[in-house]
């Protein structure tokens, strides 16, 4: 298990602040956050590239904080893969084993097995310069995994790939992690990518971790406004709570909550249902006019001019036009109420 406790680092213009994170053995964790959040810096601290000012990094209970990168046994795959251009693919993959002064026969056997596992036999004698993005990624993974690292750090490993290849490589990456039962930390800035690979996510902003959990947990219960916005919860409003209802704009939502006073209300668009029966007069049922409807690949995004305006996702093929009357229902349990001071 990897445990990071109160990690602080100062890189002049950028500070890493009070990082606390646990990654279980065999777990795939995605670190998410906007550009400049400090994801890459955190990974570089874990790899040992920078020396931390405060805090500890523990791997299986052993404090590796004072160790140099070559003593940590933590694999690192940077964004551009950094394949050594002076070595062939096979030599790149063998590099870590040669550094450990393993016998040549053993190196050959491990490297051949890795090459076969990654299905890159056809490029093993080629130089990295002549490889495609996907091939480079597989070679970089192979190079990092041959040394059986206790943790593999992947810094935006899919960002250099086109959309189709990215999805395919994400699947393969996940499969590979399961095959080797490795502990992976994967940096990315899209939650779609994280959802393809990760067991859990950690959301970062401004040099600190804001929230960790499964993707569903973070989406359903964002800790603050930043998380809600980052996870694309499009209905985010400031309101007033009395403990059993929350008033946002001219709308009163029924939702029991422990707060009284100013609150932040978050409702995911996919959690708002369109009611077909006009006689439905239940709790949190509102009618309004369609302000805008955009057809997306798997759903229709509809803006409804209730006060305040709501955005909903309709998974059906039904076509909505501007000005159409629409009735929506918001299940109380799907309304997230956050105390405003936390936001």
């Amino acid at each position: 298990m990897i445990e990071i406790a109160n990690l602080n680092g100062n890189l002049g213009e950028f500070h890493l602040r009070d990082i606390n994170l646990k990654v279980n053995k065999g777990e795939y964790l995605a670190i998410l956050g906007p550009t400049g959040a400090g994801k890459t810096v955190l990974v570089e601290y874990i790899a040992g590239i920078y020396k931390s000012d405060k805090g500890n990094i523990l791997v299986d209970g052993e404090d590796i904080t004072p160790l140099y990168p070559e003593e940590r046994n933590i694999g690192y795959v940077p964004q551009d893969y950094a394949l050594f251009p002076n070595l062939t693919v096979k030599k790149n993959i063998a590099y870590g084993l040669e550094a450990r002064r393993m016998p040549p026969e053993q190196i050959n056997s491990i490297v051949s097995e890795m090459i076969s596992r990654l299905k890159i036999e056809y490029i093993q004698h080629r130089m990295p310069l002549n490889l495609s993005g996907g091939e480079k990624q597989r070679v970089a993974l192979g190079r990092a995994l041959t040394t059986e690292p206790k943790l593999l750090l992947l810094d935006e490993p899919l960002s250099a790939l086109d959309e189709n290849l990215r999805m395919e490589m994400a699947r393969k990456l996940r499969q590979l992690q399961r095959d080797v039962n490795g502990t992976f930390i994967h940096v990315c800035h899209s939650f779609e990518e994280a959802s393809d690979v990760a067991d859990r996510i950690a959301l970062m902003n401004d040099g600190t971790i804001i929230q960790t959990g499964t993707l569903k947990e973070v989406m359903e219960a964002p800790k603050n406004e930043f998380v809600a916005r980052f996870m694309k919860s499009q209905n985010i409003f400031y309101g007033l709570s009395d403990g059993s209802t929350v008033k946002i704009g001219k709308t009163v939502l029924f939702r029991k909550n422990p707060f009284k006073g100013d609150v932040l209300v978050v409702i995911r668009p996919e959690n708002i249902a369109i009611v077909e029966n006009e006689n439905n007069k239940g709790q949190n049922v509102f009618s309004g006019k369609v302000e805008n409807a955009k057809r997306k690949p798997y759903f229709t995004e509809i803006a409804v001019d209730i006060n305040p305006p709501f955005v909903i996702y309709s998974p059906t093929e039904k076509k909505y036009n501007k000005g159409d009357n629409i009735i929506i229902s918001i299940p109380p349990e799907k309304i997230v109420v956050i105390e405003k001071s936390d936001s």
Partner: protein
Amino acid sequence: MALRSRGGWWPALCIGITASILAVYILLVTSNWIYLGWHDTLYFFSKSRMWERFWLTVWTATVSTSFSLFIGIPAGYALSRFRFPCRYLFASIIDLPIVVSPAVVGAFLFGITTRFPFDWISEYYGIYIGRNVYGVLLVQFTVTAAFCARLMKASFDMIPVRFEAVSHSLGASPLRTFFKVVLPMAKNGIIASMIVVWARAAAEWEGLMLFVGATEGKTDIMPFAIYLDWNGGMMGWVTSMSIVCILMAVSAISAMKLIGGRSNVW
């Protein structure tokens, strides 16, 4: 990347000025060659005096370049990668021999060769560094070592540190990383820099004039010999040796561009 070619007076003026610079150099070389004549060219080029000086220039520049590389590669790497106290001061001091006239370097060397460690080397090993070929090597080394470190720094700066980070993460020590990753990646830059340093060493004469002085066949490398023959009014020797120097320079620059072009140092 070149701009789309277009007509008009402005591109014509720019290209014309470039052509005129080239024409001046061609005129300089050809007029001197014409002055020398084909017969005299063959005469001077067949003399051992010419080739003794040529080889003296080549081997002293090669040896001093080797010493400069020995110092310049680690120094350049340190300046490129490590943070240490007084780094900027050190970087400024190491630039001094580039900015200061080589004559000053020669004058300063004159002052220190009677002190440690030079007096010690002279006493225990019998190697006197002064008005001999060791003096030539010392001047060439002093003038080019800093220059070499600067160029090496530029070569190492071109290599992203991520490669070293990855190498370390794979368990390689800093020394192994340097020899297996950094040095091979900097190879083209190092070769290009080496050629420039060699050319700089071969062209040195101001420092030599002050520190070493001229001893026929022992310390008179080609640029120095040109100066001495000029003073002696031996214009045939001056012209023929100048042509050899130009050929050496053209070869060095061509090699540098050929190799250095790929290294992005030039």
